[in-house]
């Protein structure tokens, strides 16, 4: 995390020193997960971009989405609950302006996904009723991003890259993490547990956003 913040400062400093155009905005969208027992969820977030040249930009992005986990029938992976994922991402964009108002781009990014998991409340209550405590945690971890997007100026500014843009984007996040579970008898304190390995958090996100270029 600390590294990410430092990196952001470095990029911001570099951009300002280069007089790069800055774009900031908010977006919302939909995240489709790739695992069979994971649901889909609403995604939202914000971004801060720096156009280093008309064709190259870097972008800092924070996204958050959550989805339901239905639980594994074979007793591995996560149990029934809700997974929350918040990747913090730095990506580099290759931008290909078409005229003054349309800028398609491709992006590649690297980030750190802050993950958390909440077990289903009913499941917890059921087991608590018989005196058993279940805990499942997931770790945060690295994520890799690849995407295609389009910035469309709806209120162009005096210079390219300035004004109000609508952003359409599709991006793929690849992330794998791990976690653990514990099962504890509240009475005898007898506890068992194990690590949860290879928890795939891959997802395809479709987003619609507004950006303002300074």
């Amino acid at each position, binding site marked *: 995390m600390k590294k990410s913040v430092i990196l952001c400062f470095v990029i911001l400093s570099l951009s300002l020193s280069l007089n790069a155009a800055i774009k900031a905005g908010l977006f919302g969208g939909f995240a489709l997960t790739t695992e069979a027992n994971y649901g889909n969820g609403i995604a939202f977030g914000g971004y801060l971009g720096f156009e280093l040249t008309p064709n190259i930009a870097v972008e800092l992005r924070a996204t958050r989405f959550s989805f339901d986990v239905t639980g594994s*029938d*074979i*007793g*591995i992976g996560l*149990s029934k609950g809700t997974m929350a994922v918040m990747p913090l991402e730095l990506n580099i964009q290759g931008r290909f302006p078409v005229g003054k108002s349309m800028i398609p781009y491709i992006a590649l990014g690297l980030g750190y996904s802050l993950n958390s998991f909440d077990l289903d409340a009913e499941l917890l209550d*059921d*087991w608590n*009723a*018989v*005196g*058993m405590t*279940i805990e499942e945690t997931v770790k945060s971890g690295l994520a890799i991003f690849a995407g295609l997007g389009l910035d469309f100026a709806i209120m162009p500014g005096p210079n390219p890259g300035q004004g109000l843009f609508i952003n359409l984007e599709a991006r793929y996040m690849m992330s794998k993490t791990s976690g653990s*579970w514990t*099962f504890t*008898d*509240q*009475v*005898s*304190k*007898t506890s*068992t547990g194990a690590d949860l390995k290879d928890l795939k958090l891959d997802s395809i996100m479709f987003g619609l956003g507004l950006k303002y270029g300074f």
Partner: protein
Amino acid sequence: MKTKKLNPIFLIFCLAVFGLILFVPTKASLQVTRPEPPPPADLGATAVEKDVLNPKIEYVLGKLYNIYLMQGADAAREFAAMRGIDLDGNQVRVVAEAVYANRTQNLFPEAAALKAHIQGIGGKVEATADNLVQSMVPISSVEPLSQYPLVGYLRLPFKPVAMEVTSEGVNSTGANLWQSLSPYRNTAGANVCVLDLGFSGYTSLLGTELPSSVKTQSFRSDGSLTASQVHGTACAEIIHDMAPNAALTLVNFSTDVEHRNAVNWITNQTPKIDVISYSVGWYNAGDGKGTGPICADVDRAANSGIVWVGAAGNDALDHFEGTFNDPDSDRWYNFPDGSEIEAFYVPAYYLVAAYLNWDDWGTWNGTSYSGSGNDYDLYLYYKSTTSSTWYQADYSIGLQSGTQKPIEAIGYWYSTASRWWGVGIYKWSATRACKMELFTMGNSGAINNNVPAGSLLVPADSANAVTVGAVDWSDDSREPNHTYSSQGPTHDGRTKPDLSAPSRVSCSSTTYGNLGFSGTSAATPHVAGAIALLKEKTPYNLEQIYKVLEGRVKDLGTAGKDSVYGAGSLKLKKN
């Protein structure tokens, strides 16, 4: 002073007896006649003459042989019926314990040779296990067979007893709260084996009181799974009540040899059996310290990762133990109340039996005990219903000359009227005062000098068994209905039972009906079912499950684990 004249009638009587002795069949000469002991002080009648066969034959088996030779087949059949001895025509079921030299590799070539010999003399070998050969042999070949060099000892098979005295236990333990839970990180389920005597009526309960299908195997010589006994079916019903999704395997046996083969089969099953529910017990089958052939079977199951859940026994009121005490030096044991007959009241139409063992088993080498050189005998008496006179009913005077087991047993007598019965213990020869342990059967209440402590049946004394006592399902109490539940400690001082569980519960009308199944027999499958339920629902291993059960019990009696209730009464509830 008058001189006594010889009574001519007495003279004729003596001559007649002498004549009879002369015409006794020659095979009877193989017998070693023991002088008759004087009667115990409490006895108003004289004892009968007693004799024993050679030291390689169990006393009762020898007696059957004698009766067959001297009184014929009908008398032998009558005797066998009364004693619960298995006969088929003129053949008797026996167990030959082969001498062995190569035990370290668990190979018993002598047993194979013995098997061939038995077949050669017209016997039918039914089962073998280690050095034991169970067979039906002609009664007339009992003595010759005992003389065969590879026979170390010839005996009747040990017989297990069902400990039934029925399931409200599901709710009282809180198992119902668990049943609706989806398994957490567990897809294995649970496999429970009910190892019992018989499963009469089980087929009619499939899909209702029992799972829709069960695996079955009989190790009885006749191959009967039902065996005219409903006991195992009732136990299986309780397990199904407690753990409805558990897979059940029903296995039965009727002798110690079949028992060993059954356990060997169970340990080799796929999928693996998780729990054995064992509501069966044995008298005189070990030293009470967790050793002996039946406890060895428990060890074998435990070593293969199976949890053996066994009944403590229903004998707390039928049990006496104490060091041999004879202040009047008449060789008859003086019980703590001073009497030489330990009395107990038996209602009409009950079967009467008595089992004696003493602490001189010798060393257990994993296959057999080295044996006893202290010889005590067991006498059974009944009391007149109209006077205080005692009459001798039976005796067991097996020889203990160094290699035999320190056991005597008498059974079964049928009490045609409600009356007092009694037991006397006679010291034939002993170099020390041994500690006597006596169990009676048939008494309606506690025997006179009742000692509930140490009243566990075998294999409840096994360190590898989860031993279960009985409490009432409705209030966890013993009084007044469950004082029979056998108590520890074991003869080597370990605390048993391990926990207690509900009894006096309901089973289907096919078995025991409403609140009709009582005893540690009923308690045991509640614990086996609870283990299966947690095995199915939780990610715990069997060892952890037992810790959970032990941690959740309701402590009864003395604070902490005690020899009456164990750790306490089975509870799966949170509080």
